[in-house]
């Protein structure tokens, strides 16, 4: 359903800081895939999401979503099909608007045409959806989002990303800024929503244990390339230690390469 063909992106081209963020990357996702993505800082994970989401245009290659070429489509148009959740809970919601208004805004893509953004039918639906979070937010729909905690805000953002049934969901370390208990809860809500609505999902995480436990496929990135792509039996057989050693081996090799270069 998502196809990235030979995608490259270089930042600061022609300067000393030139950085190949994506290097001839190829990736194909099947309908309903839940892919976890791991890799060190600067491996190109977020760049991959930004390329799919349309924060910038890629230098070369093509991105196909559901048979449609979205390579040059502007960001806001892609958002019809792609829901995105960032690490910072402050980024995904409008702080001085109420929970209800935020949801209405996100629901615009799918809502029936109506003169006022807030109406009885939609509000009842929002209340139902909010109650699935089990955070008591269904009784606080008129509360401004800035008065919510980080975890609550992220939960609302998660709903906003999925309420209009996007084709693809991109989660960029969306629990990293939360305390462990809240992070656990948000992760739980995420898996519930994803398994229920069967949205194809990619999730970046630094929690390697979660990366193996959640979803059906795991990708490891490094230097803008996919260096490991496992699913099915191979993934079940993969232990934490094996994955770690695979990763450090790769890093170690590079390190010795560097040493050769410098000596």
């Amino acid at each position, binding site marked *: 359903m998502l196809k990235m063909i030979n995608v490259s992106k270089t930042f600061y081209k022609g300067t000393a800081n030139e950085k190949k963020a994506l290097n001839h990357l190829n990736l194909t996702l099947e309908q309903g895939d839940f892919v976890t993505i791991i890799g060190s800082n600067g491996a190109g994970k977020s760049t991959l999401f930004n390329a799919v989401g349309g924060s910038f245009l890629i230098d070369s290659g093509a991105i196909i979503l559901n048979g449609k070429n979205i390579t040059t489509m502007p960001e806001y148009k892609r958002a019809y099909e792609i829901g995105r959740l960032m690490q910072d809970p402050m*980024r995904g919601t409008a702080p001085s608007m109420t929970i209800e208004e*935020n949801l209405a*805004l996100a629901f615009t893509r799918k809502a029936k045409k109506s003169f006022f953004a807030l109406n009885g039918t939609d509000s009842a639906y929002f209340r139902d959806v909010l109650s699935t979070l089990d955070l008591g937010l269904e009784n606080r729909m008129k509360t401004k989002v800035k008065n919510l905690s980080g975890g609550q805000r992220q939960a609302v953002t998660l709903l906003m990303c999925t309420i209009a049934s996007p084709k693809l969901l991109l989660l960029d370390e969306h629990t990293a800024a939360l305390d462990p208990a809240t992070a656990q809860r948000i992760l739980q809500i995420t898996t519930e929503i994803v398994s229920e609505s069967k949205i194809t999902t990619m999730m970046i995480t630094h929690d390697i244990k979660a990366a193996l436990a959640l979803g059906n496929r795991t990708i490891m990135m490094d230097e803008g390339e996919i260096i490991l792509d496992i699913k099915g039996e191979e993934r079940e057989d993969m232990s934490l230690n094996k994955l770690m050693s695979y990763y450090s081996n790769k890093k170690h090799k590079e390190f010795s390469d560097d040493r050769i270069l410098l000596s």
Partner: protein
Amino acid sequence: MTLITGSLQLGLLYGIMALGIYITFRILNLPDLTVDGSFALGMAVGAVVTITGHPVLALLLAMLAGSIAGLVTGLLQTKLSIHPILSGILVMTGLYTINLFIMGGRANLSVVGNETVFTLMERLIVQMGQAKTALALILSIGGALILSVIFKTRLGLAIRATGDNEDMVRSSSINADLTKCVGLSMGNAFVGLAGALICQYQMFSDVGSGSGMVVIGLASVIIGETVFGKRGVTIGLISAVAGSIIYRIIIAMALKIDLFPSYALKLISAVIVMVALSGPSIKGLMDQAKIRREVKNHLK
């Protein structure tokens, strides 16, 4: 009495401009300096059309002209990525020439002897004697109510969200460039309308009358917020009009008791805005100084 009536009328009419400024400064969170130009533009268009004998059409065309000016500023900001403040200044500067051109190269234009919406209204309700006030009230409160309805629609919600969190708007499949342009157009349409109304009210149009309008409008919005508090959009819009009335009354009183000469108006407006905007940080500095003193005393 005439002092209060006069201030009320002026306050209500300039309140329409404050509505426009509330949209751009408060809702869109954009410092829009187009206003100085689009106010004079509304005045120029208003005067020229009023002279042809169409006072109502003059208001509508002034609104249209203002909205086009806002749209140009919006396009400079979004499509050409010129800094928001500079975009406003560029349009404002360009409009000076355009306004002179509209008025046929003259710096001011009198509409004395022509039918205006105010003379129309006076003939409509002869016995009341407060036709001007009534009309100003209907237009400004009507404008505030229409806007408060617009900001409850999906487009209105999207415009509010754009000023609140642009990132989120883009990822909610809303074209933030579009909502910004629409918001700036709406804001400047109201500014243009206010320009045309003031022209018909004082019976002349002057190319220089737009200067300082941003600050006066902002002062009104801030006074309104100080009195009524920062609450929802509907209350915000109405308090902008109320703030404009209070501003006019303060100015009229101060002029009446010869506190300062009439040319001091703009300095006073600037000072009001400065004081109001710096309030929170001055309070912060005072609190800090207090803590420092206490710590010092504690150490002794």
